[in-house]
Every structure is written in C-alpha cells, then in structure tokens.
C-alpha cells in the first residue's frame, strides 16, 4: 500500500499501547544502537544483543540499552571504519 499515512494511522500506535519513547534520550540511544549495528557491524545485531543480555539484569529497559552500547563502543577500533 503506498497511500499516504492518514491521521488514524498515526493515532494507532497510541491507541494500541504505550508511546514508543518516554524521553528524548531513549530515542537517541535507540537510534545510536541502530547506527552502530548498521555502520560498524554491517547490520549484524548479534554483538549488540549479547551486550544487551549481559546488561539487562536489574536495569530499566532503556538504561540497559545505554550500558550495552557503552560496552559495545569499547570494542570498536580506535579509528573510524573505512
């Protein structure tokens, strides 16, 4: 379907449940993880997922993403990827 989104489409995610993000830092960390997966790991999500599993116990959801991304950033090479 290529029809433009209608107002009711935009309303649906809210009608169906919680908003995706509660604060701007949450969408930022989500997007940063997507950027690293895409641009540092060629789309391979497994390295991030392993860090997320390790980071999860006892942390609120988006804080576990922050901790996982911090840990993953430590594993990146020092120089920008070619």
């Amino acid at each position, binding site marked *: 379907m290529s029809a433009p989104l209608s107002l009711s489409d935009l309303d649906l995610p809210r009608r*169906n*449940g919680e908003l*995706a993000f509660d604060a*701007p*830092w949450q969408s*930022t960390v989500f997007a*940063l993880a*997507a950027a690293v997966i895409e641009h540092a790991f060629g789309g391979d999500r497994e390295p991030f*997922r392993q860090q997320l599993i390790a980071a999860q116990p006892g942390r609120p959801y988006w804080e576990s993403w922050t901790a996982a991304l911090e840990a993953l950033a430590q594993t990146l090479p020092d120089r*920008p990827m070619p």
Partner: protein
Amino acid sequence: MSVRGYHPAPASPVEQRVAALEALLTERGLVPAGFIEEITRRYESEIGPMNGTKVVARAWVDPQYKQRLLADGTAAIAELGFGGPEGDHMVVVENTPGIHNVIVCTLCSCYPWPVLGLPPAWYKDPPYRARLVREPRTLLAEMGCPLPDDVEIRVWDSSAEVRYLVLPERPPGTEGMTEAELADLVTRDSMIGAARL
C-alpha cells in the same frame, strides 16, 4: 519539530551518558547527519502495530496471500511495504480453534519491529519473559486472555535470527467487513498472542 538537545532542566546522569555516546560515535563517523532524527520520526509515526494489522487483515481476506504469509513471512510482509531492521526473518504462526500461539523473548526483548513497532513495557519485563515459558496458561489468564483447557498453547521464543508474529483468528460475524474495517479490529496484543479477538 524535534527538541533534542534542548534541556531546560539539568541533564540526568543517563542523559549525560547518552550525550557522551552520541559525541563519541559521531566522531567515529558512525552516525550520519540527521540519522537520529530520522529513526525517531519513523518509529514514532510510521512504524507500529498498524503495519501488522494490515498484514493480518490481508491474510483474512486473501487466502493466497495467507498461504504466502505462512510459507515465507518476510517476503509476504515485504509485499505490503514493511521490512527492515529486526524484521529480516519473520515467521508468522496461525491461531486456530485448537491452537493459540504467543511470542516472547526469554533472553532480551527481540520483537518484530517492522510490523509491531517497539515492544510494550510488559513484554520487556522479566516476569513475562520467565512465566510465559513456565506457566503460559496461568499468565495469559492473568493478563485477561483465559484459554480453554483443550486449546494447545504454543510459546515461540524470539531470537536475533527469527521474529514471530501471531496471525489471530478472524472473529465471527465479520464476513461483510472491508479489509480496512478488519484491520481496525486487530490489536497489538492479539498479534503478540496475549489477547484473542
């Protein structure tokens, strides 16, 4: 318009950590200009359970589409224009009068983003992740989805490789409805398997 970067109150520690990550990763050349804004916009307005409702409604009205959907979920979902991160190996599981499917991610919170958006809070909670495997009938009943004893419950554990989507049963009495009207009946929770229609 985005108000990112504007903090009227002092930033919390986690906000500071995320800002530091953003600076570090941008310096490494991993975050193209506008990337964060674009991802946020897409997940707040374009990507969500309304995508899944269209897939389900199409499967209800078009038996050939339903066949393709059950045979190759990723390809059939892409026919409607949905795909991308976290949706590259989609498996659709069909509810029948005797079988109820429900999805979980026991290890983290894998979820079929392109068709359901981001997961609800309870999906990410350890109690749901643990109890759905151990005592699915009890948990589903507590969540408002009691199932008769003769209905088999199948629990699908998502992984980095495979994401599941539940195809709920079409409710009785909907024979005259259009595809768009049917899509409006479908709820997010029914596509997780935490509710029936």
